[in-house]
């Protein structure tokens, strides 16, 4: 396949921007054509369920906006000027130079410019993020690796010591997962309920110091394939053990499964968790009992097709099979997993649904996705706003679970954990009633 219709995975530069903008105190400096930043803002302020990070609207996006002159003669000096002035205009604890395709093709020496900034005493890091070298997900991975490896010494020194039992959480990509805030918080809540301290890195209550503490954590948890490389890297670098999950935990069973994984790696006092868990499990059972009239009246036991990033897709598949008896005809994974990750994902699906294996498709191509939907004739679709047209055509209700979501406002809800599963029940019920 040489192209995709209605692409969903954007580029490394945008992923770097989404990641940096979600970090309090970080300011990106874009070295690219002017439109690169505009495409990012236009897309991720409108297509991520309006779950924009602070930077999309609230914070001016510093950008060199290179012109023809810079393409012909090089744009290094323009970057020098922009960096020098960014530190005068925008308040930050760290400035991160990120690059677009044009400046990389021209061959501007970004490292030299960053070094100049550092020599002047500014907290500057840089990472090369041309769009032709990867998607949003790769931009997330690159920025994280850079922050861990190159965090300025001054920030490290100023950071408070890491709390006892610190657990790093990876793999939930701000904005590419429109529900990222709630997902991170819910994973954080689960970790807290075990008496450990979550290191979530993004948004509320986090700061640049969260990054100085990465190496002092007792555990790294990846809740999607996009956290695996980072977790493995930290295992090698700091010897920190890792939990490698492929998907979000949705519902009580998945939460307990996550906790068991953590228990295997850490020696924690988890009695408190289990007594609370029993209550939550009971609470969830009551919700399901109360749901019965709606469940039966609206015929929830339908055939579903899931179109989503792998972490969300598998999490939802696991839940709707375990708790709702919904048949899954196909799972379409839209994030650009590499071959080994695809194999792991397929293997998980094959063993989890061994009685009736859903067709597994790896694509972000709208036409291919719609062909699968037409063929499977689902009674419910879990997907993105792009699927709304085909959902109307097939008269199959759509639950919006994955990027892009431009026709729903998401402030602080998601599908992770037990509270997320309740939200999902509400979403399914509402979609079927409309």
């Amino acid at each position: 396949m040489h192209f995709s219709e209605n692409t969903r995975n954007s580029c490394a530069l945008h992923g770097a921007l989404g990641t940096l903008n979600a970090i309090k105190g970080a300011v990106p400096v874009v070295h690219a054509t002017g439109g690169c930043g505009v495409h990012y803002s236009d897309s991720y302020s409108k297509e991520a369920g309006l779950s924009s990070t602070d930077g999309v609207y609230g914070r001016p996006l510093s950008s060199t906006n290179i012109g023809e002159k810079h393409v012909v003669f090089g744009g290094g000096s323009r970057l020098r000027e922009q960096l020098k002035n960014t530190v005068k205009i925008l308040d930050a604890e760290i400035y991160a130079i990120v690059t677009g395709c044009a400046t990389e093709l021209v061959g501007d020496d970004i490292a030299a410019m960053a070094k100049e900034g550092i020599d002047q005493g500014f907290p500057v890091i840089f990472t090369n993020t041309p769009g032709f070298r990867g998607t949003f997900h790769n931009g997330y991975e690159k920025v994280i690796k850079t922050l861990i490896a190159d965090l300025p010494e001054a920030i490290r020194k100023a950071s408070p010591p890491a709390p006892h039992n610190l657990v790093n959480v990876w793999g939930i990509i701000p904005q590419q997962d429109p529900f990222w805030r709630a997902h991170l918080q819910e994973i954080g809540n689960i970790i807290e309920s075990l008496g450990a301290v979550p290191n979530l890195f993004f948004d509320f209550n986090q700061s640049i110091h969260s990054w100085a503490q990465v190496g002092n954590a007792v555990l790294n948890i990846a809740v999607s394939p996009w956290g695996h490389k980072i977790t493995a890297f930290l295992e090698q670098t700091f010897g920190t053990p890792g939990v490698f999950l492929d998907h979000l935990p949705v519902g009580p069973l998945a939460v307990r499964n996550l906790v068991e994984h953590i228990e295997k790696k850490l020696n924690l006092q988890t009695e408190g968790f289990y007594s609370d868990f029993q209550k939550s499990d009971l609470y969830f059972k009551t919700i399901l009992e109360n749901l019965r009239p709606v469940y039966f009246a609206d015929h929830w036991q339908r055939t579903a097709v899931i179109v989503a990033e792998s972490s969300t897709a598998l999490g939802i598949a696991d839940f709707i099979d375990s708790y709702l008896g919904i048949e899954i005809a196909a799972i379409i994974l839209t994030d650009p997993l590499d071959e080994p990750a695809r194999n792991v994902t397929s293997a998980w699906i094959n063993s989890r649904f061994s009685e009736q294996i859903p067709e597994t498709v790896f694509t972000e191509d709208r036409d291919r996705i719609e062909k699968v939907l037409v063929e499977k004739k689902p009674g419910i679709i879990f997907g993105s706003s792009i699927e709304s047209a085909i959902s109307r055509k097939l008269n199959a209700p759509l639950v919006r679970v994955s990027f892009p979501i431009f026709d729903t406002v998401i402030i602080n809800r998601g599908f992770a954990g037990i509270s997320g599963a309740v939200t999902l029940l509400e979403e399914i019920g509402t979609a079927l009633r409309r």
Partner: protein
Amino acid sequence: MNNARLKTAPNREKRHATITAFIGDSGTLLEEYQRDEVQQRIRTFSQSTSDDLVAALRVVSRIRNVAVIIHGPEGCSAGFSYLTNKTDLKWASTQLDERDTIMGADEKLRSAVATLYNRHKPQAIIIVATPSVAINNDDIQSVVDELTGELGVPIIPVFVSGFSSKAGISGNDMALHALLKFTQGETDEADGEFLNLISVNELPEDIKELQCLLDVLKIPRQILPDTAEPRTFEKASQASATVGIDIDTAEYAGLWLEKASSVPWIQTSYPAGLVATKDWLTKIGEHFGKAHAARDLHAAESVKCAPLLSEPVLSGKRVFLEGSPSKVFGLHALVHELGGSISGLSLTHFDKLHLPSLKKLVDEFPQTPIHIGENQAFETINLIKRDIPDLFIGTTSTAVHASAEGVPSISIDQLAILGYSGLSNFADVVRKTLRLKGFINAVSGTVSPLKTSWLQRSPNWHIKQEVK
């Protein structure tokens, strides 16, 4: 000017002495243009700003029965699903990777065009270039030449680069250039006279209002490029006249059709407010021998709007306006009619097309602060903080900042302001915004991401003369 032979449209700097960086007063700006000593200035700090690619994508986003290929890495098409979600346009990205940028991507493009054609059988295929293919000089033209014959539909290359101009609006012209150039050909005889109405990414409510007015005057028309199909562009050469809504986006197509096909280009005001709407209707009416009907229609609609003017909602209020020059000068007219005055203007760009509007402003207020620069909120806010207005009207992103200063703010991004219904809608939105301050009170005082030291500096600190 007949640009049909050119590969793409010349940029705005060359055509209209367009500038994108300036802070000063209205009188100084006018003087520069009158003396023909327009200074190209640059910024030593900038925020991201629309380039020609962004503008070109807006032009093609609402065309029907075509398929669009964005030829570049995937990020160049970010946001296009949102932009096209109401139109169901078929589009794809060639998803170029590092290898393509080294080895060339002609083959990928060829395959994308063929596949997209076979899947959807569009009446034309539009290829939009991106910075990567522009820098690598990828051969788009040979793919176009080769496949046009093979597939039998127009293949329309839009040669934008992301860096061809400081003014993103140049990409608007480049896209229209391609659409008009590659849809020339044999067309059926048009039945009767009709008007070309140039509309680029206008709001459906605004278009509806103008359509209703033209309906009353019984003037048949076709709209392009919004909602047009390839045939609409072909037929454009047979129209009796062309008119625009917004001169920034319409002028290139209007002049093209006048030069290439002798279709008269009717220059009018941006139809916001009573005076400008009258001008728009009358000039079109005159061309079609319906000047009387246009005046009667205006008289009847004016009567309906009279209560809005007798108790003007902006009486005694000072307003800061931000947006494209057409829109800002249009809003200026609205503010004026509703009794308000201007505290300052921020324009995405400025050029010779807007000299008449600027002159009118200077005649009345020679000292009006003017900021030129798209999406440069760090300057706009610096300017606003010096002289806090009673109301801010502009883009959503700057409205966010203005609201932090406690200024009641209106976003123009989805605000219908054209024609008579636009006037009453605008008055209603203004009334509510000025009266109901619950939200503004709740969000005002948000900590600014801008350093205090910057806000105390002159707002034009980072605007410098360009050294060639």
